[in-house]
């Protein structure tokens, strides 16, 4: 049986969780916002040639909320990795990043968490740098579901680490 890993995308609403997944799974993007309620589950396998292996990523696209403590905890069971997504153009989506990460860690201490600033296409390099100053040490990737920037890298690196 192929290795299967559950990856959960979590974060405020409208930050681009579904868009990132759609970019990764289908390589498409839409400017229209269609809110996710509950959870969508997607699957994509990632080949890791170095190891001669395939990993199935079972990606859980959770509905966004204002406070991740409101997330239904059953969704989080059996998670191998979290991708915490925020929107670089909306401070409200990253102001609570510290306590949000703390919350996830309380939930499952050893599960890796990737922190992703999405919609980087909307800011200039300088603006990203300014933003970086505030939350620098935490962020792993600045992505754009729209242009596809760093999206594959995000998922494939994660897949590699999970085996």
């Amino acid at each position, binding site marked *: 049986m192929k290795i299967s890993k559950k990856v959960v995308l979590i974060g405020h609403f409208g930050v681009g969780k579904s868009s990132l997944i759609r970019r990764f799974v289908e390589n498409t993007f839409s400017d229209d916002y269609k809110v996710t309620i509950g959870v969508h*589950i997607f699957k994509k396998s990632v080949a890791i040639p170095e190891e001669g292996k395939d990993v199935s990523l079972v990606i859980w696209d959770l509905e966004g909320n204002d406070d991740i403590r409101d997330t239904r905890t059953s969704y989080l069971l059996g998670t191998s990795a979290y991708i915490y997504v925020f929107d670089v153009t909306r401070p409200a989506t990253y102001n609570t990043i510290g306590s949000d990460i703390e919350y996830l860690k309380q939930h499952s201490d050893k599960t890796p968490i990737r922190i992703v600033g999405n919609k980087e296409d909307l800011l200039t390099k300088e603006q990203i740098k300014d933003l970086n100053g505030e939350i620098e040490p935490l962020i792993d990737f600045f992505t754009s579901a729209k242009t596809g920037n760093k999206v594959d890298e995000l998922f494939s690196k994660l897949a590699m680490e999970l085996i």
Partner: protein
Amino acid sequence: MLNSYINPHVNTINQFIVINEKGNVIENESPFFKDAIGKPIKTLHPFFENIDFIPKKETQELNFKCVNIFLDDVRYVIDITIKTFEKDTNSLVIIDDLTKHYNNLQKVTQIRNETIINSQLLKYKNHILQEKERFKNRFIRSFSHEIRIPINSINRMCLLLKNTNLSQNQRYNLNVVTNINDQLKHIINDILDISRIETGYFEINTSSFNIYEAIDHINAISKQKCIEKGLNFICKVDESCPLFIDGDQYRLTQILTNLTENAIKFTTSGTIKLEVIVKNKAKNTIELDFKINDTGVGIDKKKLNAIFNGFYQIKNTKIKDNKGIGLGLSIVKHLADALKGTITVDSELKKGTSFTVGLPFAISEKQTLDEKIIEERKQLENAFKILVADPFSKAEIELESIFNQKKYNLNFVESGDAVIESLYRKKYDAVIMNLKLPKMDGLDTVRYIRLSEDADFKDIPVIMVSTNNDEEEERKCIQNRANAYISKPYEKKVLTKKINTLIKEKADLLT
């Protein structure tokens, strides 16, 4: 309350799947997953792929609400419950199809989220705009400060040059340079003022003040300027206006002087009028309209909207002292906004312009003048008002001790120019003036006074003071129509006697 929980479940049929210890489907009543029997549940849908964590042989119930699944391209939204039992190795999966209910929920959530996101984005955009604006203003401020240094140096160099031997032509050119430099300084100060207002570096200080006095003050300054330009100046305050109001007197003065100066600048003949009108009066608050009319060049109706933007200038070649740029009006607009007021303008080319500034004030609690102030005012009115021009440091102390405060009211200035200015502003009974004064000296000043056309002071008694006690000097003073010459140090008897007789003589002359 309970209904909201029950309703979604009405008319839904629960579907059951039973799985054995190994995770294979052994019973299936779900139309969603046909032909499932015998298959590992993990293969039915990715949802089931990572449920290994579910303990077996323990009674437990796990709820997964609102799970979106696609079957044959149709989207269903279901609740999935997984039940395990202590006494059974089989587990039960219960599926509840709540698509309709969740679709309604989605609509509501969609609207809610979009609204919040839009407002967050707007807030952030504003924030970024404000940052930019702040940066711009910081830049302007430091730039303006920097540029003052060379401007002041030019000024100093001009002054130095002025004191050297120059031909008439050179002197003329130097004057032009000095004037242009002054204009530049004026502009920079205006720019600084605006950037201070915009960045909120400027404060509003509210206190109780006497509106009649404040207007009187503006009247004094403006009248003087109008006289110099051959214009009339009329000033009127609505009598129903209370004596004391709460507001920022300094900013009000700034607004009104800017507007009157502007009016004077663009008027070559006729009248400037400043009126204070009570627009609304409530128990504790009052709205005043400050109306400034002129009979000047006027502004093209099409351009009226633009005049409050900085750097607007009314083009008119006839006006020689066209020092102004439109920043004054821009400042006034900013100030009026900051004071929660309004400004409107009405104008007709060649007829004149009228600005109206509406400002809200609180009516001060106390409306009476202090007894003490009334008493002092009375005294002041009855006292002899004497203008002293003596730049030497001890003069003030010496004279204050000589003259009884109740009977004499002394005002001190330090130059000849200041004497003239003070005489224009206020009525005095006599002038005591040192011969040695900076810029325009004592003799020149007394000459100016006597030659002036102003009935209020051209015959005012003038006592010249000198340390020299020199007959030749005294002769010159009298020749220039000073009334008396005394030598320093001041002696009480001599001085008071002289003053009293001179004032009395003048009074007798008038009656």
